[in-house]
Each structure stands twice: as structure tokens, then as C-alpha cells.
């Protein structure tokens, strides 16, 4: 019995290892959103480009990627070229400029190319709060009626697009 007890740590390890292995395949940043299946929350915000105030109706009408970004966000910078590429392929992207400064945001778009049809200027983070944004960048997939279908936390890159976002996007477009 004494000897058997000594196997206990090994057994605990053997239980943990498969869990770690499964964990490796999972994406901790693929967060379900409470808003999935619901329409985009209401807002009236100016855009980064102009003082003119717009509401949710400016977003609806087409299948859209709603991308939360900010100039203070390092990962957004890494993501930006990929968004440019997607925009170049004709995918409609609308930005949510999150807790940022307008001048810095305008400079960023001028320097790095602007993939967004427009960017909502959410400098108080009010829209971000309603969406449940945990950090930038985040990307929401909306259908033509502005219903949220998917939420991705973190950078959108080739892998994310080809494996997850792209298929869902095409599915919504096909409807």
C-alpha cells in the first residue's frame, strides 16, 4: 500500500497531460458573446473621419466585419495589413475606434492605409462596453440586418480567416 501511494503524483500528471493536449487545440480567445444572435446595440457616434453622427442603420445592409481597433493597441498594428488585404478583396469592414484620440486615429489611417468604410469614433468606449469588448483587436461578424453571428478576440490573420471567419462570411453572403 505504501508503495502504491507514491504513484499518486504520476497518476495526477497522466490525467492532466491529455487535458493540456486538448487545450493546445483550443483557442482561448474564441469567446462566445452574449450578443450572438442579437442585433448590434444602438448607438449614435461620430466617425473618425467626420463629426457627422451615425447610428446602427449605417452599418446594416451588407454582410460586415466590425473591427474594434485603437492606435494604442500593438496587436492592431500587426493585424492592420491583413485588414487592408481583406478590404482589397471587397470585404466590407467597419471600424470601431476604441478609447482613442481622433487625431492619432486619423494619422494612423493615413499612414497605414484605411481598410474601413468608416470607423465609429468610440472614444468613451460606450459601444465597446455594450458589445462586451475585452480588449482590442476584436472582430464581429454581422449579417445584412446587423445581427451579430460571430465574435473573434485577437488578431485576424490568414489562419483565422481561412478556417473560421471566411467560411462564416461566405455562408452569410450566400443566404
Amino acid at each position, binding site marked *: 500500500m505504501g508503495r502504491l501511494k507514491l504513484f499518486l*503524483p504520476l497518476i495526477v500528471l497522466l490525467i492532466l497531460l491529455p487535458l493540456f493536449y486538448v487545450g493546445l487545440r483550443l483557442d482561448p480567445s474564441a469567446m462566445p458573446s452574449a450578443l450572438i444572435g442579437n442585433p448590434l446595440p444602438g448607438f449614435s457616434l461620430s466617425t473618425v473621419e467626420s463629426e457627422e453622427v451615425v447610428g446602427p442603420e449605417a452599418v446594416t445592409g451588407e454582410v460586415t466585419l466590425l473591427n474594434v481597433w485603437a492606435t494604442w493597441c500593438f496587436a492592431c498594428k500587426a493585424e492592420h495589413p491583413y485588414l487592408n488585404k481583406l478590404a482589397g478583396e471587397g470585404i466590407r469592414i467597419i471600424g470601431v475606434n476604441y478609447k482613442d484620440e481622433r487625431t492619432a486615429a486619423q494619422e494612423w489611417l493615413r499612414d497605414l492605409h484605411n481598410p474601413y468604410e468608416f470607423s465609429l469614433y468610440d472614444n468613451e468606449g460606450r459601444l465597446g462596453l455594450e458589445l462586451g469588448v475585452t480588449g482590442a483587436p476584436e472582430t464581429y461578424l454581422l449579417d445584412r440586418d446587423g445581427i451579430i453571428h460571430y465574435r473573434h478576440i485577437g488578431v485576424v490573420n490568414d489562419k483565422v480567416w481561412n478556417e473560421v471567419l471566411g467560411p462564416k462570411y461566405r455562408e452569410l453572403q450566400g443566404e
Partner: protein
Amino acid sequence: MIPELGHFALILSLALSAALFVVPLWGAYRLSQPLMLAGRSLAAGQLLMVTVAFVILGWAFLHDDFSVSYVANHSNSLMPVYYKLSAIWGGHEGSLLLWILMLSGWTFAIAIFSRSLPLDMQARVLAVMGFVATGFLMFILFTSNPFDRILPLSPQEGADLNPLLQDPGLIFHPPLLYMGYVGFSSVFAFAIAALLTGKLDTAWARWSRPWATVAWAFLTLGLALGSWWAYYELGWGGWWFWDPVENAAFMPWLVGTALIHSLAVTEKRGLFKSWTILLAIFAFSLSLLGTFLVRSGVLTSVHAFANDPDRGLFILVFLAVVVGASLLLFALRAPVIKNAPSFNLLSRETLLLANNILLMIAMITVLFGTLFPLVADALKLGKYSVGAPYFNLTFIPFMTIICLLMGIAPESRWKRTNGSPLAKVVSGPAVLSLALGIAVPILLGDFAFSMVLAVFIGSWVGLTTLWDLWRKSQNSQGRWVGLRKLSLSYWGMIIAHCGIAVSVLGVCLNSHYADMDKVRMDVGQPVTVAGYQFTLEKLEQVRGPNYMADQAVVVMSKDDRVLRVLKPQKRRYFASGQIMTEVALDPGFTRDVYVAMGDKINAQSWAMRIHYMRFVRWIWLGALMMALGGMFAVIDKRYRKRKSAASPTPQEA
């Protein structure tokens, strides 16, 4: 060409470390002296080759060789030289190389400083170290080569080191932390070698003790520096976030703390042998687990390492092999206790065992909180995030009990302690601590029962420790002679335990009495926070080597006396365009005041945050004292004896 030499040096190191694993082990099996001795030369060769690789990577940074992908991603020609050098460990690949460099350094140190060991034992220890190095060198060569090139289209300019990392704290934080992590690998190697030979006498505990203590002291410093860096660089006014990466470093520290105490019992009394071995395996396993969690991307964390599932898989396999094999070896070879323990319920052994069990429970609660999101996700129970409330709720009660026991442990005796004299001895400090516990919150102007308890606990640890020092330094030839007669390791214990007291007081008082105000500051208009006046003198633009900054000049005064001119900045780094807040601090023994710039309101005014952080320095002062105490224990002369004493004379633990 030169980076390829670095790559080649790494390949040679892999060959040498593989030889270091095989040759001395074979020699120990065949009892061949030349093969066993070869371990020392191989350890030296491995250190040399890894150093060459490390120096070459440094050379690439200094010469802005942006054809090397790692350099291009973590440096920029405008960066000051010292940040170019610290950028060597500013990313995954380079920090892994630093880790390997330290591992090779520790291996070499064992080869040099443990010649008093029986040769077969030393050969086995070095072989285990060689095995660990082989794993890490394969990891770096196959998944994370820092010498990979971007050819032929090399960038003209580097992407810059993350501005958060362009800070003096980061120059020293990873090296200290890795010294600790890697240090536990040497204790692990001693434990495995002891299991292999079956010679689990008190001698191996004696050999391992100084190595364990050094590793623990470095880990303490590394954690403290990391927390200090988070405090002033992240500018949130926090100093510990229970982030998975912080937990990954904290768990080996908890086990390491248990280990250095358990080693004392094993060395002095020959007890808890299996337990000590298990702790040695755990301390290193948790270091590996931390590496896995941090670098595989299985958990989300504020520490941004480039995450990659392939790397995660490699570490997971390595973890499974190392930890699985050592736990199997442990299960097969560890001694099973047959006779009843030869100590009473109230004895130093019991108290140290309680310390061990409580530290392990604390570690398991942290481990559970850290892994729960991962496990829940893997079992499809849903997405969870475990935050500070869980950790505070589960961690604090165990720490409270540990601190209470800490007060009586130094007074207790081996084998058995008489209860009533012990109670008499500690009654003085107990009453005084209670008085302080009531007085301090009243003096600080905000009475709360949680703070009475906190101050009581902190004072109790400190006062009982000092009281013990006072009693043990009694000497017929006077106090001074008495103090000088105490062993260095006893001094080490006193300093480290006082350090705990200081840290506990700092953590608790800061958590309750810290204050923060968000204010609008206009040029020339004073604002008052926590009894200090802050006047925004002017706003200016400053240019740094690789950034432009808005700088506010804030004069801090009290009762019309100017205390300090604070210059917080909002920096914008050229290469990344990233905005960084640099806080300005007025440090003090009982309080820090710090000012951070928020958002610009107009040309003449900014929103700012002013933090009034009471006793925050005590947190790190205590950690420094703990590390210093560890160093005192290590330089105690009994470890410098060049003989392998099997039965040490009983003295202070």
C-alpha cells in the same frame, strides 16, 4: 555569415549536451572513471558553445542586422544600446537562449563546485542536467531558432522592441527569474541522481540545500522585480494581477519555499526524505509547466509572447517525458516509511511539515485557478476566467495560518517541544502585535477589522522573529559576542522571516489604504489630493531617442513647501506608433505618490491620475530581505567544507 556561426554553435551545443547526458551516465553504470570525468569537460564545452551563440545574437542586435528575423522584430536602429542588448531576451527565441545559457552556467557551476561529491553521483547529476539542456536545445533549434534570416528581402529597419519592455526593470527581470527557474533544475538533478543511486541519505539533502536556496533567492528577486516593473511601467497602480504568467512563476516559488524548509528537516533529522524528493521534482516540473503555459498560448495573458501551438506541443511532450519519467522513478525508488515518526506532535518537525502542507495547498489553489479555464474549456464545460477575487479568497487564509505558525517555529525544538514554556515565550510578542494591530489602523485614520488582523499577523511574524534573535544572542560575554556567535544561516532565517513580515504589512496596508484620484489639471491651477498640492506648471514636447512625448511638469508640494517636480510623459514610439504612459513617481518609505497622464482635454489641460500608494515599497523591501536571507544561509561556512559529511552535527536549521 556571422548569424550562421551562432546557429552552428547552437547545433554543437546540442551535440555536447546529448553527450553530457549519455557519457557520464554510461560511465557511472560501467564504473569507468574517465567517462564519468568527461562530464566536467562536456559541461564546460556546452557552456562555451552556448555563450558563443548568445554573444553572436548580441552582436547582431548591436550591429542592427535586420536580416535576422528575430532582430528585425525586436529592435530598431534608434534604440539606445542598453535596450538593444536587453532586447536579446525581449522575445520568445532570445529569452529561450538566455534560459539555455543560464542552464549551461548552472551545469558548469555544478561541475566546478561539487567536486566533493562522490564521482558517480556528480556524473549522474551532470547527466540529468545534460538531458534537460538537450530538451531545451532541441526546442530552440527545431521550433524557435533566433538566427532565422529574412533573405533576400531584408527589412531596412526593425519593428522596435515593445515599448513596455524598453525599461531598466526589464533588463534584469528575466535573467533573475530564469536564474531561479533554472536553479531548480539543479536541485531536480540532485534528486534524480539520488533516486538513481538509491543513496537517499542526509548527504544529498546537504548537497542540494545551498543550490535550492540560491535558486529560491533568485526567483524571489525576479518576482519582486517583475512586480515592481508592472507597478510603475503598466501605470495601473497595481503590482500583482494574478495573471497566468505571474502564477506560473509564483507556483515554483511556493514549492521552492516548501523545499528549502523540507530540506532542512531531511538534512538535520533524516526525515521526510520522499517528500523532499517529491518537492524537488515539483519545483522543476512547475517551472516547465510555466514555460508551457506561457509560450504555447493555451491561456490568455497580458504577457505577449508570440504563441505557437507547435511550440506548445514540443514543450508538452518534453514535460511529459521529464516529469513522467521522474515521477515514475520516484514511485519505484522512493523510500517507503516503515517506522513511526520519531517526533512529537509539538516539535519543529511538525511545524515544518505544517508549513510544507500549507504551502502546497496554497500552490494547488493557485494551480487550480490558473488551469481551471483551460480544463473547463477542454472538457467543454464552457469558457471561464478566474480572477483576483478567487485567488485572494483562497490564498489569504492559508498564508494567515502559515504566518501564525512562523511565529512559533523558530522557538520550537527538534523532536519535541514543551508547550507551556513556548507559550510563555511568545506571549510578549503576541500582546505587542495585538496592540500594534489596533494602534496602526487608528493612526492611519481608517479603522477596519481586516487591517487589525493584517497588522497583527505582520507584526507577529516580525516581533517573534526578533524576539527569538534577542533570546538566542544572550551570552555571558555580552550581547555583541552573542550576536556574532550566531551562525550565518540563522541570520539568514531571521532576515528572511522579517522580510515576510515587511512584505505582509506592505501588501495588506497597501491594499486597504492606497488611494487614487482622477483629476482634470489645467496649467497654473493647483489640485489637492491626499493632502498634497499638485500644480501643472507647463506642458511641453520632448524628443527621446525613439519616441516623441508630451510631458507635463507637475510641482508637488505640501504646506507651500515644494517636495518634488514630477514629469510624467505620454510617449509615442516612432516605429510602432504605440502610445505609452510613463508615470512620474515620488517614492517614499511609507508612501509613493505617482502621477500618470490620461487624455488630453485641450492645449492647456489634461486628465490625470494621481495615486497615493501607501507602504507599497514594503512589498519589495520584504522580498529583498528574503533574498538576502537566502544568500546569508548559502554563504554559511558549513557548506564550504570540502568534504562530504554524512552525519552533520546538530545545529540551527
